[in-house]
């Protein structure tokens, strides 16, 4: 079961080179039989796929008692409880599913994933995702300093497997309205944190935003920064289909998914995490996931790598933020904590107590995400700024639903928070 043929990262890079973009669902079911069916359906879909085991939210926050209670009562959970099921159940669930051409990743969203890392290693898995910033600031009240310590220990534990792979979630912060340069900077900084704590196979994430041209530039900046700052790591870039307010029409949802697959190919990413047409309403079924994977695979096959993206300053801004943070301390975790304290990193609209909250992003008339307030971000000379007052509540709703409106068409405007 060991050796490079089992490495999630190496397999994705090999498959992407030989078969094209690797597409992956966000799929997790409490019942091991259903989880196994979901993985097999993913593997057998008409696309180049990677499998996903998404964990439930009780496991995410370490509430093992709630998991045990739910399992004992036969209640459903919103994901696979890898800790509660234990290694034997999970190994049996996976038996014969993982093949040399079907890598599997565990997804969780935890600010303290130590128990999850232990459980997935025991079950014979060693690929997962997250990060000390990206799984702390948006979704928890855990102090950033604590999340950094938790993640340092978790990385070291994961790195005990020679084929371990870890993906940064930093390129997806807040889902929407975060200017791309900050997404790129956070993704790279989390990658540097992973490397410092022993990982040698890392993927760097970036979530599709509001402007295809700006997204292409951002992924080019991310790729360049990875080459400059993580040259000794085996790496690839993973794109996430839009994570904000999702189109409500099936046609709009499909167009947005196809656009994200084309972005991934144009920008040279190896992997794409898809969304389904059910996304605006509920947790998708296995069949809806398979349909999304096949649509994304087909859209990717019809796209080709683009020439150099136009440079509007995403690279320069991201580099300035990364350099300012790394200058604080040779320890990336300490540098991240101090970087947020000083406001060198400051995520717009993020309410976490350790986020300064002095920055604001906004959409310009062409759909590009730009800075309206930069707070103490060290990008005074290169920020892509627009002037104006901070957004009103009505403008915020407008900006949050920009993608939904664009892809659903003007008559389908609706507001859901």
């Amino acid at each position, binding site marked *: 079961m060991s050796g490079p043929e089992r490495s999630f990262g190496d397999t994705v890079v090999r498959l992407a080179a030989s078969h094209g973009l690797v597409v992956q669902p966000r799929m997790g079911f409490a019942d091991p039989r259903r989880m196994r069916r979901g993985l097999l359906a993913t593997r057998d879909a008409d696309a180049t796929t990677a499998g996903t085991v998404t964990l439930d939210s009780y496991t995410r926050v370490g509430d093992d008692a709630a998991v045990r209670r739910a399992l004992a009562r036969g209640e459903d959970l919103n994901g696979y409880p890898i800790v509660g099921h234990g290694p034997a159940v999970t190994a049996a669930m996976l038996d014969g599913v993982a093949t040399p051409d079907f890598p599997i990743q565990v997804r969780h969203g935890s600010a303290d994933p130590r128990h999850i890392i232990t459980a997935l290693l025991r079950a014979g898995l060693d690929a997962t995702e997250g990060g000390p910033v990206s799984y702390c600031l*948006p*979704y*928890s*009240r855990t102090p950033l300093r604590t999340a950094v310590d938790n993640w340092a220990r978790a990385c070291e534990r994961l790195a005990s497997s020679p084929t371990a792979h870890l993906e940064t979630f930093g390129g997806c912060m807040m889902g929407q309205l975060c200017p791309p340069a900050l997404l790129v900077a956070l993704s790279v900084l989390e990658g540097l944190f992973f490397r410092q704590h022993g990982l040698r196979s890392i993927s760097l994430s970036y979530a599709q935003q509001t402007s295809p041209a700006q997204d292409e530039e951002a992924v080019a900046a991310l790729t360049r920064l990875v080459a400059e700052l993580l040259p000794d790591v085996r790496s690839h870039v993973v794109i996430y289909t839009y994570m904000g307010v999702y189109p409500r029409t099936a046609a709009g949802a499909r167009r947005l998914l196809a656009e994200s697959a084309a972005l991934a190919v144009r920008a040279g990413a190896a992997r794409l995490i898809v969304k389904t047409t059910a996304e605006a309403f509920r947790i998708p079924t296995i069949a809806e996931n398979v349909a999304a994977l096949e649509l994304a695979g087909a859209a990717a096959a019809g796209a080709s790598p683009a020439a150099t993206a136009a440079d509007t300053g995403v690279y320069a801004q991201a580099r300035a933020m990364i350099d300012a943070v790394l200058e604080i301390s040779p320890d990336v975790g300490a540098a991240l904590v101090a970087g947020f304290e000083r406001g060198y990193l400051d995520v717009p*609209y*993020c*309410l*976490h*107590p350790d986020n300064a909250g002095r920055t604001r992003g906004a959409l310009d008339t062409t759909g590009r995400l730009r800075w309206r307030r930069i707070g103490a971000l060290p990008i005074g000379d290169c920020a892509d700024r627009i002037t104006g007052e901070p*957004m*009103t*509540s009505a403008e*915020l*709703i407008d900006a*949050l639903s920009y993608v939904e409106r664009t892809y659903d068409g003007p008559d389908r405007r609706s507001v*859901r*928070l």
Partner: protein
Amino acid sequence: MDIVVTSTSSDAHTWNLVYLQLLLEESGHRVTNLGACVPDALLVRAARERRPDLIVISSVNGHGRQDGLRVIEALRACPELAGTPVVIGGKLDVAGGAEGGDAVDLIAAGFNGVFRDDIAEFRQYVALLAQEHPVGVR
């Protein structure tokens, strides 16, 4: 008015909270936004310290009804918060449509208002409360 905006203990969503803060500030109110995943004890502590004129609980993860019934009991158990207006809104249950019954339960448990996603109704409630609220006096 001084208003505390908060999510519930189990809810990690924040765009709803950002929106409500902007909306209330635009009407001239001062907002303390407690953010995501606020444990009951933290909300109670913040409310006792700040003695706000209104507490707005917003939840969209489907557990709002259960979390709301629990936290209102804790708030009302504090003598100094017994009369503080407390309202709840958002998507309060998983089914998302079963009106009526839940609202009655929540009002009976001590909420002063229950708003689904009807923002106009909420704004009207806040405007009326502000009218009743003498400027500069608690």
